[in-house]
């Protein structure tokens, strides 16, 4: 075995070990590496009410309520299996609307209502001009995919 060949094998072995170690570490931290929990995750993980968490999902159709004379807004976030009522007072991003994916940071109250301190819009990976989007909606090929939690 030449020295070059030996260095090549050592490098391959090193990369294999490094890759395995990284994969194991990432798998171990799986629940902590997510940026947000879905409403189902939240029910499963039983997060304590005093901990700040982020939740993500779609804003349920027809769930947005604004009260006159107040900036407080109430809506429900759904992952199509579980829903979570959210209350928020503050500035919403431009993309916020019913059916849109969002990520909200806040605390889960004892009454099961999520009190958000920050609401971010999640954008989907579809790019098209407005006319194309309108045509898709007319022909019934429209699929609401934004922010659907995995």
């Amino acid at each position, binding site marked *: 075995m030449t020295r070059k060949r030996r260095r090549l094998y050592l490098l391959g072995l090193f990369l294999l070990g490094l890759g395995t170690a990284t994969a194991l570490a990432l798998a171990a931290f799986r629940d902590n590496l*997510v940026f947000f929990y879905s409403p189902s995750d939240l029910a499963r993980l039983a997060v304590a009410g005093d901990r700040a968490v982020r939740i993500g999902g779609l804003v349920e159709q027809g769930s947005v309520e604004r009260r006159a004379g107040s900036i407080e807004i109430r809506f429900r976030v759904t992952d199509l299996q579980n829903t979570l009522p959210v209350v928020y007072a503050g500035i919403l*991003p431009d993309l916020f609307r019913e059916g849109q994916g969002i990520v909200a940071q806040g605390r889960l109250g004892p009454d099961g209502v999520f009190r958000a301190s920050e609401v971010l819009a999640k954008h989907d990976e579809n790019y098209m001009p407005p006319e194309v989007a309108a045509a898709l909606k007319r022909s019934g090929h429209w699929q609401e995919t934004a922010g659907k939690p995995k």
Partner: protein
Amino acid sequence: MHRFANPARFLRLGAAIMPWSTGVAVLSLAAGLYFALFASPADYQQGESVRIMYVHVPAAWMALFIYTSLAATSAIALVWKHPLADLAAKAMAPVGAAFTALCLVTGSLWGQPMWGTWWVWDARLTSVLVLFFLYLGHIALNNAFDDPTRGARAAAVLAIVGVVNVPIIKFSVDWWNTLHQPASITRLAAPAIDPAMLRPLLLMAIGFTAYFVSILLLRIRTEILARKLRTLRYMQGAEAPAPAVAGERI
């Protein structure tokens, strides 16, 4: 491949390629910017902000592509000890760092109006920031030693260790919940992007790649000439045979 490890042959080849790659870069970037800024539609959700994508996405592709090249070059430098591979790695790193910075800045500018925040610590954004620090670390290590060969070896090891970050960046949006959206263009499915928007995106990507080729050839040439000059000065000053340092012998 060993044939091109000869610096004289590399210089000739580079001089032949450079006018072409520079021409392609100028034309593609001019056409790409025209389509990106004027001759493409606004997005149905993002409005005019979608135009930031035509710089952001190709810059992100370049950041990953250059890092992968950097790691491959470093592996060649460590295993086969080609002096040219060390020079190429050293020439590549600042260009990659610049593309990563461009990607981070444009992404932040897009995130503020669209997401409602300049920055979040989700898996995609954080792993790209780590990539930026890997580039900076590579540049710093390369210059941290008096003996350039030792600096190049340390930097090569860092580049190879950092390569685990590349698949993490690529698949972060699929493995974990992130604020960042998943890829629109994949090999297996039709792109989730309108053809009118794909055109400026691809033109910009071609332009960035051609620019990278030109600037890399230029930087490697400068580095070869600088080392030649240093060796000549050393020989004149010492009035003795040339030093037998592998990296210095050109």
